[in-house]
């Protein structure tokens, strides 16, 4: 055989790195019209369903027979919606000072469902978060900063301030001595069983200057959750009031002989101007008998931001289909071999695919959420709906979190597609893993605790990233998935989803490396 000069290419060698793989996968994604149409459809579904929901939601409130726009809930010092309704007996305090009181007992009454129609069925009782004690409040305006130490129905002694802050003291109820001391910007709350040995419960900070100091009582409604036949639950909150007997009142730092002012803070007035469920004070000698209705706590009033993202679930299904077929189409056509010829390091090839699909989905999802949340909220507000206040960082988390949720689900679906190599199986598996548990948990079909476990253990936990409402122990509400509350904090829930996606991707990479294609 004659000697042959082997071929030398004149082509300048290209770079062979992860960036090249990313670029190749992006070229793949953008050059198939169906996939880009699918991603666009995701965005449109989220925006249009959100807008549809917002335009279809109207609310108005009645003031007696008159329809009025619903008042926005008061907001606390932190900007959050708050409940601030209680009976306050107070004096002016210009500087440092203190107030001490003995709470002798808490009694109250609850309205239960009528046994005889038309006859009020009222029974004695105190709700768990009924509270009475001493308070320093910047003004009598609803939402103004405050610090208070109190005896509660069944949560022992607490020191609370500015609605969101809550520190537990010792358990147990009245009789109990309570004291607040103001020194400069610091307010210290203390409790005592006998009025001589005091224990500090907590401290709060409040700007110096003129404030109000006094006694208060409030009782949130009697919350009952009844299971219904098909497994869900119905929530009802009925009227409740609390009456606290207090004596041994001593106030320092106020004007000598200063008189007590009474305020039924936040009371709603009937159309004829009379208060609805008023509180009150009955004073005999040194004894103050204060009756209060309402609550001092963060409120759930107003529509949370994530409600306008109703289209995310539909968009998610489209994302699952696109992400699955981004990989299964290659198996169906045998194109996976071409992919692996170009990128023989298979794990890297799969990761490049996952990065590209997730970044693309993130961008489309981000556009969708960034349009839907502000537009939806503007439309809702225009229709007279009360919106829950949305802090800028929380809004950012809800919007970017929605995009990230979609992106991570895309990775999960892609990994399932690579594992099963068949579109139908992978799409069904992804929907069963994410969409089905979410629907079951939030559709009020399951007992609350089962629904919570579903949202802790399945990839559907990731939806928690969308929850804008922050919950606090001192709120009286049913924190069930059916009401939009997730059992895990936003980032923890999202981490559960990420863990599932990472696990699925690792399995898919392992299997891809091990098998012939």
């Amino acid at each position, binding site marked *: 055989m004659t000697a042959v000069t082997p071929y030398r290419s004149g*082509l300048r060698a290209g770079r062979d790195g992860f960036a*090249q793989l990313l670029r190749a996968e992006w070229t793949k994604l953008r050059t198939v019209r169906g996939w880009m149409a699918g991603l666009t459809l995701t965005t449109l579904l989220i925006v249009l369903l959100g807008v549809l929901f917002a335009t279809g939601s109207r609310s108005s409130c009645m003031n007696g027979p008159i329809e009025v726009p619903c008042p926005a809930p008061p907001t606390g010092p932190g900007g959050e919606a708050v409940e601030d309704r209680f009976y306050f007996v107070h004096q002016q305090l210009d500087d440092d000072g203190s107030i001490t009181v003995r709470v002798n007992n808490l009694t109250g009454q609850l309205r239960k469902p009528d046994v005889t129609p038309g006859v009020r069925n009222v029974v004695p009782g105190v709700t768990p978060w009924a509270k009475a004690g001493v308070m320093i409040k910047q003004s009598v305006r609803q939402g103004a900063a405050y610090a208070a130490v109190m005896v509660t129905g069944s949560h022992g002694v607490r020191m609370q301030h500015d609605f969101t802050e809550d520190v537990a003291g010792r358990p147990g109820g009245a009789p109990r001595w309570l004291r607040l001391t103001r020194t400069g910007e610091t307010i210290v709350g203390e409790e005592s069983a006998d009025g001589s040995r005091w224990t500090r419960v907590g401290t709060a900070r409040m700007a110096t200057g003129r404030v109000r100091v006094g006694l208060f009582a409030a009782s949130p409604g009697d919350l009952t959750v009844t299971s219904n036949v098909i497994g869900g639950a119905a929530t009802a909150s009925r009227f409740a009031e609390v009456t606290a007997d207090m004596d041994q009142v001593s106030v320092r730092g106020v004007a000598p002989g200063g008189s007590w002012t009474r305020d039924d803070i936040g009371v709603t007035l009937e159309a004829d101007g009379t208060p609805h469920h008023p509180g009150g004070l009955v004073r005999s000698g040194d004894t103050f008998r204060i009756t209060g209705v309402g609550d001092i706590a963060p409120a759930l009033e107003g529509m949370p931001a994530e409600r306008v993202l109703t289209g995310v679930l539909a968009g998610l299904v489209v994302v699952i289909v696109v992400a699955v077929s981004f990989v299964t189409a290659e198996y169906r056509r*045998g*194109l996976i071999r071409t992919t692996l010829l170009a990128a023989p390091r298979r794990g890297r090839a799969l990761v490049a695919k996952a990065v590209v699909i997730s970044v693309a989905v993130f961008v489309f999802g981000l556009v969708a959420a960034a349009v839907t949340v502000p537009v939806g909220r503007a439309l809702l507000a225009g229709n007279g709906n009360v919106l829950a206040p949305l802090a800028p960082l929380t809004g950012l988390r809800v919007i970017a979190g929605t995009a990230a949720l979609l992106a991570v689900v895309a990775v999960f679906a892609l990994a399932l597609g690579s594992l099963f190599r068949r579109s139908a199986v992978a799409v069904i598996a992804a929907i069963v893993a994410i969409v089905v548990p979410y629907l079951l948990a939030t559709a009020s079909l399951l007992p609350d605790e089962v629904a919570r476990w579903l949202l802790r253990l399945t990839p559907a936990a990731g939806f928690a990233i969308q929850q804008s409402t922050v919950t606090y122990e001192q709120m009286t509400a049913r924190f069930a998935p059916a009401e939009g509350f997730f059992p895990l904090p936003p980032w923890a829930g999202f981490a559960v989803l990420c863990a599932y996606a990472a696990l699925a991707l690792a399995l898919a990479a392992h299997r891809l490396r091990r098998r012939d294609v």
Partner: protein
Amino acid sequence: MEATIEVNGLRKRFGQTRALDGMTFTVLPGQVTGFVGPNGAGKSTTMRVVLGLDAADEGHALVGGRPYASLRSPLSHVGALLDAAALQPGRTARNHLLWLAHSQGLGAGRVDEVIEQVGLTPAARRRAGGYSLGMRQRLGIAAALLGDPPVLMLDEPFNGLDPEGIVWIRGFLRSLAAEGRAVLVSSHLMSELQDTAGHLVVVGRGRVVADTSVADLIATASRDRVTLRTQARPEAMSVLAAAGGTVTVTDRDTLVVSGLASEHIVRLLASRAVPFSEVAAHRASLEEAYLDLTRDAVEFKGAAR
């Protein structure tokens, strides 16, 4: 990098089926090597093992002295066409080549070059799903050429081509080999490789049956056989058999004689006055040579044979 493919002792089972059974051969640069054998002989499996897509149970395969999986910018070392139908139907031909080019750090300019080279320029921006099989083969070849590799592996590239396409691809493969590339072309039909391949690796039942140049193969298959055309067949047969030849009847007036040289046959027949019209040294066709070799290796024989 050396422009070679080395396949050494590959064994692979798919369940009970032994797909590769000690497959060993080397593909050298500068010529088209035909990789022939009946369907199921292990040609595609061997190619997939060489390309790192399938793992062999035993043995190894190297491209330019290295395992495929260790190659950087692999398409600039080896170009392969395995399955021309492996395309996303909704993607245009040009975009198909574009993502491949991007994966190797190459640009759109190189894509247009290879499209031009295989003559697909007018159809480059059409969806590949609408391509005929012949156009897909051209697209597959364009993909194999993208990195301008010194080694090419094409699995059944003649499938679905019209006669004009077959002529084109033969010339194209010869010119690629003439540039010093190693070109391995598989086919289950030897006739497709006639006038194209300079070297043949004939396989059956997962192993190499013959590894030889085309010229040697034909010579071996033709050896000692003479075709005789005569009106007096019985007389000729008895004369030649008596002289020690093996005589086979192939036609009403044609005999194939082996064991006797053609000059000897002429002398014998002339001395006994047996009339004949033609004596010719038999030249086997590539197809015949191939059938000889693979007769035992064919997995599924027709019942009539």
